[in-house]
């Protein structure tokens, strides 16, 4: 059984809630549970009672450009799920919360800081034999007014990565060791999504995302173990600017969350262009 969150030594323990906490707040009108999965059918097979579905492809991504929704799109989404600025949004999902952390990260682009991640995601909830149902909840629509999207604190574009490289900033490659080494162009058991070159961004440290979790239930490891992993073993400093990346930004959202909220890295951004952009660009430096 995982150590209680408040005893794990996290920098911002309030960003993570337990399955117990969620169970106790199932009927709390100030809390909105959001399920985000890789397989978009999964929500409909059964979800935490009262949870709404936010699909990373259709709800969070622009449907034309490779980008995220606009302020108007975010307002529409929040209004649809019945959230106000005071609503505590709690994310959870499959794949050990990859997409939950990704959705959480997109919400930060719009400044909805009243957000949490449920430790362990669907796996933990199901392993504890907690209830799921197929009832799709309906909440009264709100008139959510969002700020303009502000990517700068949380999101790195390719030009930011170039500038970061020049400054010898910290980079974390959270993909599998094989993808990092360039011997594999995609994560194990996944198809190649079109990167022409294998390898990693020069100077990036290889810290696969899964090292941050307990494999049995997907919960995050305590701060001391995370600190050893990122700071001691891989010489990453919480006070230095850091950029995390993976393939399209989903796994690195998970690491971004761990670095920023659990270890208190002061300036960490997610490069969502990730390897599907870097591995296709002409003339950029690559290491193997």
């Amino acid at each position, binding site marked *: 059984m995982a150590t209680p969150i408040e005893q794990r030594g996290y920098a911002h323990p309030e960003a993570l809630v337990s399955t117990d906490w969620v169970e106790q707040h199932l009927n709390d009108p100030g809390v909105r549970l959001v399920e985000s999965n890789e*397989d978009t*059918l*999964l929500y409909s*097979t059964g979800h935490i009672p009262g949870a709404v579905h936010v699909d990373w*492809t259709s709800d969070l991504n622009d449907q034309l450009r490779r980008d995220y929704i606009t302020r108007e799109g975010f307002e529409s989404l929040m209004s649809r799920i019945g959230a106000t600025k005071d609503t505590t949004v709690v994310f959870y999902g*499959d794949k050990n919360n990859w997409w939950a952390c990704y959705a959480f990260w997109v919400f930060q682009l719009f400044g909805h800081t009243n957000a949490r991640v449920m430790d362990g995601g669907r796996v933990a909830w199901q392993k504890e034999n907690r209830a799921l149902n197929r009832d799709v909840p309906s909440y009264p629509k709100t008139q959510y007014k969002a700020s303009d999207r502000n990517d700068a604190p949380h999101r790195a574009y390719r030009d930011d990565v170039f500038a970061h490289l020049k400054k010898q900033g910290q980079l974390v490659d959270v993909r599998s060791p094989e993808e990092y080494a360039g011997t594999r162009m995609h994560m194990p*058991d996944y198809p190649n*999504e079109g990167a022409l070159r294998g390898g990693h961004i020069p100077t990036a440290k290889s810290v696969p995302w899964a090292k941050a979790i307990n494999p049995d239930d997907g919960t995050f490891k305590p701060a001391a173990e995370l600190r050893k992993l990122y700071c001691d073993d891989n010489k990453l400093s919480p006070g230095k600017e850091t950029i995390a990346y993976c393939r399209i930004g989903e796994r690195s959202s998970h690491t971004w969350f761990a670095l920023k909220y659990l270890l208190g890295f002061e300036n960490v951004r997610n490069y969502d262009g990730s390897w599907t952009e870097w591995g296709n660009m002409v003339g950029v430096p690559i290491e193997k």
Partner: protein
Amino acid sequence: MFQMFDPADRTGMLLSYADQFKEVPPSIATRPFPTSHQVPQCESDAYVWAQKMPDDTLKLYFAVENPSGVSAKALAAILDKTLSGQPASEIATVNCDIVEKIFRQNISMGKGMGLMSMVQAVSALAKAASKDKS
């Protein structure tokens, strides 16, 4: 027929198929399933078999080891219901485009490619069976 559904109906229909998914029976294969039957690059850890019937048709069987692989289960059920009982030569012509027609924009690029690999695996087994006249 799948194109005519609105998103909610499509989701309901796909779930209905996923609920009808039947795993490969022990008479055909047991765990650990041989990697020779594993669908490459499918993150749902899917397997496929094709059994040649006396009338020269094929019966398809599937396993989906990832419990969250709902889309893979739905596709497996659809492929079984529409292709099992057809001659191998006809099954061999099944086109990956059906994944886009069935799931539309409900899936990511990666998942779509994994599901297309399931269709390709079925086609490859059918091609092999149609060459095998024994």
